[in-house]
């Protein structure tokens, strides 16, 4: 858990700003979005980009977020 004294940093998630603790794990951010990174069913069809580059699923748990990071979390939706 994060202690209240930790520094928070601004990041952008799917175009919206939010504050998270410095070094916040990407997997914690996904849980905040109600995507369980350990659940194959929940993550099927989901992908993540960090600052314009895809983060492979097997690398999600290694990512720590830094100030002004831009995260995109996508999924398949109806389309033509």
């Amino acid at each position, binding site marked *: 858990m994060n202690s209240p004294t930790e520094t928070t940093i601004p990041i952008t*998630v*799917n175009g919206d700003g939010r504050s998270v603790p410095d070094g916040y794990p990407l997997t914690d951010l996904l849980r905040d979005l*109600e995507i369980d990174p350990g659940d194959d069913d929940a993550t099927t069809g989901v992908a993540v980009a960090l600052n314009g580059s895809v983060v492979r*699923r097997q690398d999600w748990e290694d990512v720590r977020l830094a100030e002004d990071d831009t995260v995109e979390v996508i*999924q*398949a939706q109806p389309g*033509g």
Partner: protein
Amino acid sequence: MSNDVRTNGAVEHEAGDALVMGDYSFSSRLIVGTSRYPNPQVMLDALEATGTELVTVAIRRVNVENPAPESHLDLLRQGGYEVLPNTAGCYTAREAVLVAQLAREALGTDLIKLEVIGDDETLMPDVEQLLDAAKTLVDDGFTVLAYANDDPITCRKLADLGCAAVMPLGSPIGSGMGIVNPYNLRIIREEIDDTPLIVDAGIGTASDAVMAMELGYDGILLNTAIAQAQHPVEMAHAMRLAVEAGRHAHRAGRIPRRLYAEASSPREGRVET
């Protein structure tokens, strides 16, 4: 032709008339979009009625305010469909390449319907960005199905870049205007005989699909014509028949047009008074 079995005038397909794009092979020549249906059940019923094996999806941000909606992907995979992600809404090669890479990671497919548009009013491709993105994605190992203008030069360039299919529009996306320039589509077909060609966008009703297939196109990609029809499932069935009818007519080889009549019945032996 050699793959057909003709019996008493009936033509039955053997496995030989598949639509092959890259390493993928489909017996249906109809690719169908999954958007704008009245509800998910109508979509599923319509998809089944088309006989399609390949359906398109968009790649969009997970809704941060309302995460984890019912999975569109699950519905389609349960139906046994191969999924073709698109890059709809991308304006630059950079955006399209990132969306394609995200789609590959999310869906585990190298198929991509490449769409790079120039504005919101026409949804016409931005050719410069389209060619740039196509090159990058082909080099990155994608099976690229490229949505293009009905422009023989652009289509030739996309084929030469290694796209697995080139998909000129019949008319603007969602317009239902049909095939507005059959002459260009004919030229494109005549000049590109080494790459599958699909008419993507603008199909309004079954006769549009027939016309495209009679022009020798390898397949049709459509969405709105079915999804927004008054009876989507019936239109889906019509489109299936249209694509099959057009394909057969093309393969059969139509008679030449002539200005004057030519009697079908023999002249000899007529009863004369």
